[in-house]
């Protein structure tokens, strides 16, 4: 690794950043999908009748037990065998999003169960419907309580967006590979720069979530243990 390699890499950094933007888009997509489905699955696991609960647990088990790369391939190549073509980007959002939902649901389930049952009872005694209770009493508290666990999940899936490289999404890893395939001595500096980008994003993200956590903090409402 020479100084020359670094000076050759420098003008290519914008290309890497372009790739990184795709990782961030992926991240936004998969986290949102994971959040919506994760909350739904957690609600089913806590409130729904037994057969639905078992189904939700099986869903969780599958998406937690299969490697992300295998999921990516299933979602990318699976539909095409049914004649449905799906873009690599969409396949990645779906595969990683469903997987994340299986982890997020665990976080939310724990948070929901940490809220004293007396509060639901009190809301019911005011004449609030079951859905109203979930919306106005349970979710506002559960979402706050989830932030700490959610911050872990964020760090984890941020890094996992690089796996979309495996099915050909043109994200930062793919851009780095393009660069280095044409110019082999660039490999080490290029991947070190990518690593630094993620290091910065990880810490920036966690700092942001910490900030959000402090802003939303309510006395007496903290994640226990």
């Amino acid at each position, binding site marked *: 690794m020479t100084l020359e390699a670094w000076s050759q890499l420098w003008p290519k950094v914008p290309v890497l950043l372009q790739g990184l933007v795709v990782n961030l888009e992926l991240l936004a997509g998969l986290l949102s999908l994971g959040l919506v489905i994760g909350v739904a699955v957690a609600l089913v696991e806590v409130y729904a009748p037994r057969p639905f609960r078992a189904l939700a647990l099986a869903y969780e088990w599958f998406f937690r037990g299969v490697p992300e790369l295998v999921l990516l391939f299933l979602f990318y190549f699976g539909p*095409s065998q049914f004649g449905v073509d799906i873009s690599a980007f969409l396949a990645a959002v779906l595969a990683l999003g469903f997987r*994340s939902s299986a982890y997020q649901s665990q*976080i939310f389930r724990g948070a929901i169960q940490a809220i004293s049952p007396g509060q639901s009872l009190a809301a019911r005694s005011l004449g609030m419907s079951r859905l109203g209770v979930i919306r106005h009493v349970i979710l506002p508290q559960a979402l706050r309580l989830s932030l700490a666990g959610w911050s872990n999940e964020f760090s984890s899936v941020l890094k996992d967006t690089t796996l979309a490289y495996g099915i050909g999404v043109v994200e930062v*890893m793919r851009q780095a590979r393009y660069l280095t395939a044409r110019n082999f001595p660039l*490999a080490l500096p290029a991947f070190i720069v990518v690593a630094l980008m993620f290091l910065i994003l990880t810490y920036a993200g966690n700092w942001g979530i910490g900030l959000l956590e402090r802003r939303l903090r309510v006395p007496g409402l903290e994640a226990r243990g």
Partner: protein
Amino acid sequence: MNLVFDWAWLPQLGRGLVLTVELTAACMALGALGGLVLALLRVYARGWLSPLYALASAYVHLFRGTPLLVQLMIVHFGLPNVGIVFTPFVSGLVAMALNTAAYQAEYFRGAIQSVKAGQMMAARSVGLTRLQAIRHVIIPQALRLVIPPWSNELIYMLKYSSIVYMVGAADLMGVGRTIAAKNFRFLELFLVVAAIYLAVVLLLTLTMRWVEKRLRVPGLGTSGRGA
């Protein structure tokens, strides 16, 4: 459409699985060693040893803050720039061991710090040196406490080892992908590969639960990679 499966694929997938298991086992063992040392440095390296504390901390932050895939790429495609060349398997092993050491360090640290402070004092009061106390009192307790997060890490690494196919290793994922591409049967192959991973995960979960029960000590209560 109809699903097609050729039983002749199974022995090949089996060989891939063997490589996956070897890779996982080796990286977990190396990671445990490295992780324990890093954890001890982060908890006990003070005074004139504090540069080691700083070094260990920087290592943990660096490896936890960057994607394993990037680490693998650096090892396999980057290091040749400075004259270090590994086979795909060794690249995978090096990257995975370096990575999991950082995570395991955090689990060990958590476990060591949850051993009550009084235990160290009691050990010193019996006349044990600090190192003896760590070795005979703190570590045996910490190792038991670390089993649940360590089990999660084991399963995590088993699944994540699938990335080594990207540098050309013939692990379960790699073999599955090769057969799939050759026969143009992606759905079938990846369903089978998924099922095999699930089965191994289940087996490991049950085994680690059993181990935890076997090693349980009354009164010694117990945390993993979030995802």
